[in-house]
């Protein structure tokens, strides 16, 4: 199916959010041909404690840092094997204490192609393999240099993901994926900065990222309930030094654990609700965020008349 809450976005919120929600470029669900699933989603994420390098602390001059995201995402079925996805978020950040001003704006557009070359029945089970590729690019001229209140890192990214889904008895599933994200260098409004050395440039080297994601649970046409484990590792970057502010090229590693649900109305099968929550359980240079989200999605048939159903395997 549908909604899109891509991992790139989670990365771009760096210290604020790390999440991976249901039914996206990181799940095993494909739209039928000509079906277009689209809808709004709301995400709230906050943290009070964060890791300064490996040292966990709070910051009384930030209090609780929260991020709200209002996004619109969609997933179009070119064919049951090939889907196109997009997502556009509007983001608002806020610190409950201290003097720093809240920030808001439209963040990054992401576009993805999801391809399922293999979908093989094996007894009662079915094994599917997916290749997913995507890009993201900032849609507004926000500053990434005011973390943790910046609305994103402003890096253009490209990602490739390999994903395997095992589906048993049309009810139980497990999906595992690994993703490599290339991040383009970013530019700051200033022409020097200190990482672990002084750099006389406005350009910041952004290390690439790998993520691993495992999700498992119950999945039918009408209901999905799953648990998700996600790990993000920055391939480089430096630690926040003691009592320093975060910087876009910090090594922002995070592992999170969460649950997601999707409910499809039997009377209106085009309409579904999604919801989820996840908690960062380990990290480095990120906030220990708790994230909750909810969305409403509707499936439009952009083809002739043939009725779409989701998840025909």
């Amino acid at each position, binding site marked *: 199916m549908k909604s899109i809450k891509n991992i790139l976005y989670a990365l771009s919120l760096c210290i604020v959010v790390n999440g991976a929600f249901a039914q996206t470029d990181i799940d095993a669900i494909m739209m039928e041909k000509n079906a277009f699933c689209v809808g709004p989603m709301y995400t709230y994420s906050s943290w009070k404690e964060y890791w300064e390098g490996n040292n966990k602390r709070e910051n*009384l001059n930030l209090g609780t840092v929260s991020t709200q995201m209002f996004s619109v995402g969609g997933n179009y079925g070119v064919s049951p094997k090939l889907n196109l996805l997009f997502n556009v978020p509007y983001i608002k950040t806020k610190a409950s204490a201290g003097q720093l001003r*809240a920030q808001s704006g439209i963040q990054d557009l992401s576009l993805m192609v999801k391809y399922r070359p293999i979908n093989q029945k094996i007894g009662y089970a079915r094994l599917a*393999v997916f290749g997913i590729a995507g890009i993201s690019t900032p849609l507004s001229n926000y500053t990434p240099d005011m973390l943790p209140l910046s609305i994103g890192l402003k890096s253009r990214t490209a990602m490739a993901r390999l994903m395997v889904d095992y589906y048993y008895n049309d009810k139980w599933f497990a999906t595992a994926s690994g993703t490599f994200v290339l991040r383009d260098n970013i530019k700051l409004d200033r022409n*020097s900065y200190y990482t672990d050395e002084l750099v006389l440039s406005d350009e910041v080297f952004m290390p*690439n990222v790998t993520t691993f994601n495992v999700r498992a649970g119950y999945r039918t046409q009408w209901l999905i309930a799953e648990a998700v484990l996600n790990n993000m590792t920055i391939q480089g970057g430096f630690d926040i030094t*003691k009592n320093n502010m975060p910087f876009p090229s910090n090594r922002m590693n995070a592992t999170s654990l969460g649950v997601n649900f999707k409910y499809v109305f039997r009377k209106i099968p085009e309409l579904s609700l999604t919801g989820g929550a996840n908690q960062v359980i380990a990290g480095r240079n990120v906030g220990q965020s708790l994230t909750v989200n909810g969305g409403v999605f509707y499936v439009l048939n952009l083809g002739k008349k043939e009725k779409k159903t989701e998840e025909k395997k």
Partner: protein
Amino acid sequence: MKLQSIIVTIITAATVLSSCSKQIEGRTDNIAPLNPANIDINAGTWRPILLTGPTEFVVAAPAATNTPGYVAEINEIKSWQQNLSRRQKDQINYWGAGAVLRWNEIMRQLVAKYNLPPYQNPDGTYPIPDANNPLAATKFPFANPPYAARAYAYVSAAQYDALVAAWHFKKLYNRLAPYKNNATVNTLLPQTDLPSYPSEDAVVIGVMTEMMKLLFPGDQAYIQTLATEHRNARIAAGMNVRSDMDAGEALGKLVAQKFVTRARGDRTGAAVAITNGVDLWKEYETACISRGEEPWISLEIPKRPPMLPYFGKVRTWLFDSLTMVTTIRPAAPPSTKSEQFKKETAEVLHYSKNATREEIAIVHYWADGVATYTPPGHWNAIAADDFITQRFSEVRWARNMALLNMSLMDAAVVCWDTKFFYYNPRPSQANPDIKTWTGLPNFPSYTSGHSTFSGAAATILGHIVPGRKQAYEAMAKEASLSRLYGAIHYRSDCEKGLEAGNKVGGYAIARAQTDGAD
């Protein structure tokens, strides 16, 4: 197989993309070697800052170039040059860009590294960095703007005095560079007619290794590593023999020690204004209240003592404390009860709510806050970028950096004197609706430090590089207003700070006009 081909495709695409160069090139990483337009052969006559004269520390006469000792030194160069690694060549080019420039950049790096406010104790008090225990959990120093301004000033002034002395002995002994005495010595950097004994690079090394014991005592190993690289680079490049280096380094150390003595007695040690746990700085709060004004209070949690309250008492370079108090310290800010104050606070609120993206970019361009080289460092960077194009000799580089950095340190003293004398609240204290676009500094508002620094720097730099005078003034104005856009200063903080800074710069110009170098 299909799956395999997909995996191969993805991996190939990723490899191709990730091999694209993302390496950042700093704007001075690969600049051309310094090849001065004028060797300033008579710089030994320039007026030093602390030295009584260029011969206060005597450099012994060098060995003649026909002695076995000198020949051995030439052979050392040749043995270095026999198999220079890529890394050694890179180091030769790096240091070849200029000793004053490179050590200025290293200073800026250390300032950025150490520019972090101490983290609070469990009881809500704050530790005070300890010069005798620089590697403790709370590192010494906290290289905040006043500390940084002072560090840049001492280093630059000491380099200048030591180089004036070096130039005196260069001309006196007139021992030419190794390649002038022996045609078989290769040179990897531009040749010069400047006598090579004592080495100007070594003078700077000597000054730095000595001064840094005082200023950044926790990074001795790093400094020594750089000093060794620099020393070897000069010899391997064929620019100096070892005795040039030894004599220069010894001279640099002796001159630096004189500056260290001054620094130890310049009252910076008492600038935190806390003695045996007693907050001496509260006297300013009391005085402010007794004048009927609202005093500054810390908006940090837990409340942090203000930054270096007694820095306004630190010994200046370009004028005495009486001059500072009577002719440079700005008149009182608008009373916190006045209409003018309300008006200015409303203007700050406007920027807090409505700053444009362009104004926010200006805020961040000039913010120079935590973990940066501070506003004085920013003006050093601006100066260095321009000095590179001017092709100054090392001694002129040092002289101009000394003028700039004495101005910046004196600007810090003037500004801190003003801030604590008036003890004016920040806009966010006057109106809690004012949220800021950058970190709110933890000390009184009037006047703006950025404005004072920028006024001083722009004024003296406009004298040094007259063609850039208007550009510097425009930059100073922008830096000043950036603090209003950032919603951390009132307009009068910025304007009066800039004016006071300009006055400080004027004293530097007066010195420049009479030091023999103009």
